């Protein structure tokens, strides 16, 4: 397989994993905030949350990625790592992956919120808990446990979507693959190596989330 070394594949997948980890945390935090906005009693926040989900769920990720470099970095001058082009590319990729998948996290969480009977939120309010306390103590813990399956699907989609970061010059798995193909011509072997890498990343996660969603379900 020519010059494609095992070390190069590993380091490309290491970048894939880093992209996925940082973006997953970003998407989870942002998605939770948007979900709370959407279920809050404040109309303006609800509308903002709805706007966010509709906008980012319906914008192609590639477009967001390219905007991070061409729009934000070059046109608007928002450079996230002025001393290093690679770091700027990486950080914009994390930002855009987070922003994009937050919309899906939000919707997964909202489906989880719907598994919590409305009476429990009412009981929490009636005993004098504030909206924030009702969310953090009563609604969200159950919403997360009720949304593990769709959250897992979102994480797996996110891992696969890290490949889009290649379009702005990140040398993660897909970046290395297209470079290898350009230099050495395509072969089924090269394709299989990278496909296998993603299966190794995502398959155990899928199994883990399925078993977690069964174990952590809230008994009613």
């Amino acid at each position, binding site marked *: 397989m020519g010059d494609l070394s095992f070390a190069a594949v590993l380091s490309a997948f290491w970048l894939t994993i880093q992209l996925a980890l940082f973006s997953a945390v970003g998407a989870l935090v942002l998605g939770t905030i948007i979900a709370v906005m959407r279920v809050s009693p404040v109309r303006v926040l609800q509308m903002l949350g709805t706007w966010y989900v509709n906008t980012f769920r319906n914008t192609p990720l590639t477009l967001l990625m390219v905007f991070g470099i061409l729009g934000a970095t070059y046109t608007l001058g928002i450079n996230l790592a002025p001393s290093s082009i690679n770091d700027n590319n990486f950080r914009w990729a994390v930002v855009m992956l987070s922003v994009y998948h937050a919309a899906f996290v939000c919707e997964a969480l909202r489906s989880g919120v719907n598994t*919590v*009977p409305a*009476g*429990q939120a*009412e*009981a*929490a*309010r*009636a*005993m*004098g*808990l*504030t909206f924030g*306390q009702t969310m953090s*103590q*009563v609604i969200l*813990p*159950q919403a997360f*446990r009720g949304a593990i399956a769709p959250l897992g699907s979102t994480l797996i989609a996110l891992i696969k979507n890290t490949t889009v970061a290649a379009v702005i010059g990140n040398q993660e798995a897909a970046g290395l693959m297209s470079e290898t193909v350009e230099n050495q011509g395509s072969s089924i072997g090269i394709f299989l190596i990278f496909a296998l890498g993603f299966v190794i990343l995502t398959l155990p996660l899928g199994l883990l989330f399925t078993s977690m969603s069964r174990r952590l379900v*809230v*008994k*009613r």
Partner: protein
Amino acid sequence: MTEPLVVLKGVNKHFGDLHVLKDIDLTIGKGEVVVVIGPSGSGKSTLCRTINRLETFESGSIEIDGKPLPEEGKALAALRADVGMVFQSFNLFAHKTILENVTLGPIKARGVKKADAEKRAMELLERVGVAHQAQKYPAQLSGGQQQRVAIARSLAMDPKVMLFDEPTSALDPEMINEVLDVMTSLAKSGMTMVVVTHEMGFARRAANRVVFMADGQIVEEAAPETFFTNPTSDRAKDFLGKILTH
């Protein structure tokens, strides 16, 4: 009557075009137990929910212990902490143990220390007879046990007044009495209570007054014995005729 604790004056509320509460005037004295009775849809639940502002209202005023109901935010949360509420469907927090259900309010809304909150919670669970279930989850308890936990959870906040919205309507018949017994002893201990219920035995045993509602209005108020044996309004006569035949 004793010193007034809950005072409603000319309260009106609509759901869209539906006028659910019509000029409600009601005063509940400290330590008084008031049973609210009336046909389904007459506005009894809405009345309870309006008293602790789970519902808004358009005109009139509601005061609790001399203070008007705050509109929103922290002040409203503080007021709600003083008004206990027990629901028809228990509404225990499904992901928390029985003990955690009872300590959550005191710890979060009152800032009580965890150890103190747990000690008090165990006393209350003992009082309602479910102390041995403290480490279980709500789904592991019977309906009657869950409702007694819900009462303990309300009591843990040391409320000034407790609202009960048909607390036994969702229970199997054999569990109704264990909940009514807890409520009766609570009434005897001097708790101020507003109880929506059709349990006449409880009303006779524990209530100072029965308030009869129909179509969003308070139609009649009387001592329990007087109301059940000698109702004055046609609506009340008609209603009692229907529930007594069951």
